[in-house]
């Protein structure tokens, strides 16, 4: 709760658009907006199972060679590799 209020001043963006080195906090999951081949329900479930929940701190550590895709994101203390397309479902600030 406090972390969300603190970040209200920062602009919200989808994690899929974040540049390397970005640090933020997850605000919400908008799975329907991502252009993934998965259903919104499935995408959101998988994201939560890997630790992408509201209030978790994220940092974009690395990006792939071709097209800056996929990205390696640290979520709290777990590092997850994900394509930018699926990462668009995670709104951070």
């Amino acid at each position: 709760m406090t972390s969300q209020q603190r970040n209200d001043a920062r602009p919200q963006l989808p994690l899929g658009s974040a540049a390397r080195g970005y640090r933020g906090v997850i605000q919400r999951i908008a799975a329907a907006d991502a252009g993934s081949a998965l259903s919104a329900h499935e995408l959101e479930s998988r994201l939560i199972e890997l630790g992408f929940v509201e209030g978790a701190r994220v940092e974009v550590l690395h990006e792939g060679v071709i097209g800056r895709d996929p990205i390696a994101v640290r979520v709290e203390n777990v590092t997850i590799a994900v394509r930018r397309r699926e990462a668009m479902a995670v709104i951070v600030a």
Partner: protein
Amino acid sequence: MHLALVGTPNSGKTSLFNALTGSRQKVANYPGVTVERKQGGFVTPLGRQVSLLDLPGTYSLRGRSPDEEITRDVVLGRTSGEAVPDLVLCVADSTNLRLTIRLVLELKRTGRPLMLVLNMFDIATRRGVTVDVARLSEALGVPVVTSIAVRKGGTAELLRRTDEIAAQVPIPVQQNRWQPLTIAELRATQREADRIIAATIGLPAKPDTWTARIDAVVLHPVAGLAILALILFVMFQAVFAWAQPVMNLLSSGFTALGQLVHDTLPAGLLQSFLQNGVISGVGSVIVFLPQIIIIFLFILLLEDFGYMARAAFLMDRIMGGAGLHGRAFIPLLSSFACAIPGIMATRVIDNRRDRLTTILIAPLMTCSARIPVYTLIISAFIPARLIWGWVNLQGLVMFGLYAAGIASALGVSFVIKFFMLRDYAPAPFMLELPDYKMPRAGSVAIGVYTRAKMFLQRAGTTIFSMMVLIWFLASFPLPPVGATDPPIDYSFAAMIGKALVPLLAPIGFNWQIAVALIPGMAAREVAVAALGTVYAIEGGKEAADQIGQMLTTKWSLATALSLLAWYIFAPQCASTLAVIRRETGSWKWMAITFAYMLALAYAASLATYNIAYALGAG
């Protein structure tokens, strides 16, 4: 007593399994699916016999893939033929508890007796992670033990607690309240897990930076790919070049053994059966062992170290474009040496559709066994000229054959992706990059040993029977007394070959080629010796030059080119087919591979022969 190991993919479950069961492991498939079933046994300090099942790693019981469905079903006791586990051990990486604690909360709902095992506890302590085990156990409502799988005696507490729990007969089981979790419930359990962790676990003031530092290099756009290329090159060299001497040693050993039989037994059926059927058959299985051992040594080392996930990360875009999974590159690369360890290596691909696709295209990668055939024909029929001033024509043709193999593999993958296997949900690329860890020699050794044993037991038996069958076809019926033609002319193989001539004439094959292709089904390089046999040239494949010379007088260039095109695609390897059958668990995919490769071979030969003929090479 039945125990099951559950955990997220990078929890060190396998090390724990190896530590508990040692080499007393059996690996098979769950009935009807390509999921591996790993079971082992051990004895507790109080003398209790325990059967331990290592279930596929998963982040939740939702069952998003066949592997995870197995984990879910075994834990819930839904799998027929599988005993319900008396105790479920949930294994966690102590430095990384967030996702596992959530899994524990989910597992609790199933009502099965549960115990949380905090593995890799030494690494956690070294990094400054403090765990209040008693409070954690209280908060979770589940017994908690620590373990260090890689250290001697590191599982002592686990064993002790297992005995304690087993002493309560019957072990209290609660109602199964588990249903697939809704999104709201998933969120709630993760929040609860985070809350429990905040209350009971102290994280170090300075987080460990080794992994980040190594990743800065390994995942660097330039350095990362260079390192990957280097590792792949070393692996390729190891399998291709370093395995060769051992394979040659084994091969000549078996030949010598065969020669011994030849010298000691009177000529006749028994001698032929033992020498050319049994010894040759067994030898053709054992000869694969060096390559398989080396491939799996590399794979297990890279996996335990944590590098495999990084390699998949680097390769994802490149492989994804061809419809392949990032993890397919090691199996496919291995297939350049031999498709058999390559196909066995597809176990690193979790997604079933991707694994199947990779298995289906692996045989198209130009394997080393094709080289003797290519060399025979190229050196005999392609002039040793330089074109464009500097390019060796023979080398160019060889390169072209390699390129055709790769291109066809990518093409078939594309076709499979878009036209077949459509009902399987695509797996998104969402992968945990675990912290780097030192691989442990003992665990890796057990892993390699288990794989080699699996190969011998599963594929070995099938390969051996196919070899005996081929020997039979090539040796019976025996030539009549006073026969002047080579003995093989009188065999079933020759009958089959001659019967196939009308089918093979359009692609330029004469009956001798047709007959040579039958024993040539045993392995690709056998075709060289088989052609020798058919044209009555002694010396087996050592006489390749001689055979080549003779062929130039008997075949047109068009026929030779047609045979080259045939060998790019044709499924001339009974061993590969046998391994495909074993790894996919059904005859169906083996038959499909055989059929599609045969079709491609015929089409390619047809086109090549007719084009070459039209251009005057007939």
